């Protein structure tokens, strides 16, 4: 069964809205709901489940590590849609 934790659901919402984002952008856009220390573990788990994909951005000119950009997959978009509908039916008073 495909499930979404509140954090996964929030990340998918943000990625569906903005298309492609860095980890720190997700943290900033979440209004403190996502934490810098936990976001990459959650993103890694979502990538394993196939909800999102990531790619390395260009290597910086100073030779630092390239940052990663995240995007929702069609599966992730479908799961978010179904999940939002299901929670809307089951828990209308909390939505």
């Amino acid at each position, binding site marked *: 069964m495909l499930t979404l934790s509140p954090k996964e659901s929030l990340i998918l919402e943000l990625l569906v809205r903005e298309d492609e984002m*860095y*980890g*720190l952008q997700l943290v900033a856009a979440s209004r403190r709901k996502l*934490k*810098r*220390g*936990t976001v*990459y*573990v959650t*993103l*890694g*788990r979502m*990538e394993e489940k196939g909800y999102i994909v*990531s790619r390395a951005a260009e290597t*910086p000119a*100073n*030779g*630092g*590590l*390239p*940052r*990663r950009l995240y995007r929702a997959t069609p599966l992730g978009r479908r799961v978010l849609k179904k999940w939002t509908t299901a929670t809307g039916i089951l828990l209308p008073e909390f939505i």
Partner: protein
Amino acid sequence: MNQLPGRLLHRLSNSLFSDQTMQRVINPALADLQAEYSQASGRATWTRRRIVLRGYAAFFKVIVFYATSSLRPGNWTVDDRRSLSRVFGLASAMMFAATLLFLLQPASRAVEFRGLSRMTILLIATSVPDRLPYAIAIGVLFGVLFGLRDRIVSAIPVIVIVAACLVIAATARVNNARVVPWANEAFRTLVGMPPYFPKSSAEITLRELREWIRQEEDFPNSKGFRRNLLQYHGRGSAEPAAPLVFALFGLAVITRPRLGRAHLVCIALLAAFGYYVVLYEGQSLIRYRVVPPIIAAWLANIATVLAAAAIATVVPARVRMSE
């Protein structure tokens, strides 16, 4: 990346974690730190330092969160479960054997005093708490070395073993602080030795020992007695860390290129005997004031951790922890 922070952390992590974990979890966290640092290049030094500190804090949170989320039983593989059951099974068996070995001397004394009777068993039982922390440490060392031999060492068994040893160390500390003094007093009472007033140094708790040491500072003529108290306190506070220290040593050895059974037995015996000698010689150093009491007390633990660090640094690993 010459002037960028996080290079050392990247190198260290690279030798510990799998490529997938590096790519998905570690590298993005370090890339954020470096990107933020680069963006702040024209700003005040304290601003850049704050960014570096915040980045390091975030990195360590990532590691802790990754470790704890990996520990959920759903993430354990069959290999992880087998490795852990082998380690804990062997450690328990070796601990039992070592405890019996260490009880031979008090048992022979008890039989000498009372012959074979119910009292003899009670006398032997009062000697168990004193011997237990070191016996557990030996059990852990053999358990890690032989339980993980010829197995893939992934992050989960390592984290579980270290966490278990932390709990054991805390319990052993309570044992040394409270149970051992009580058992020593019980032993003396049972064999009918005359009562000390108020108690002997071996029969008071670590807290009382600290209080006595503090009081003895006011009497310059009683330095010999004070050093005796420092010796008891040193052993009582440092020995409980032995299982954790031996686990780290065992993990450093077992993640290096494969060694035969005979080699592992030799390494384990050398480490266990060496630790014992340094622990007790360290207490003598307190007596002869060669080094400060706190250093002497922890000398065996420091030496074993340094040996583990040297092995991990000099000999290349045969496996990476999270593979």
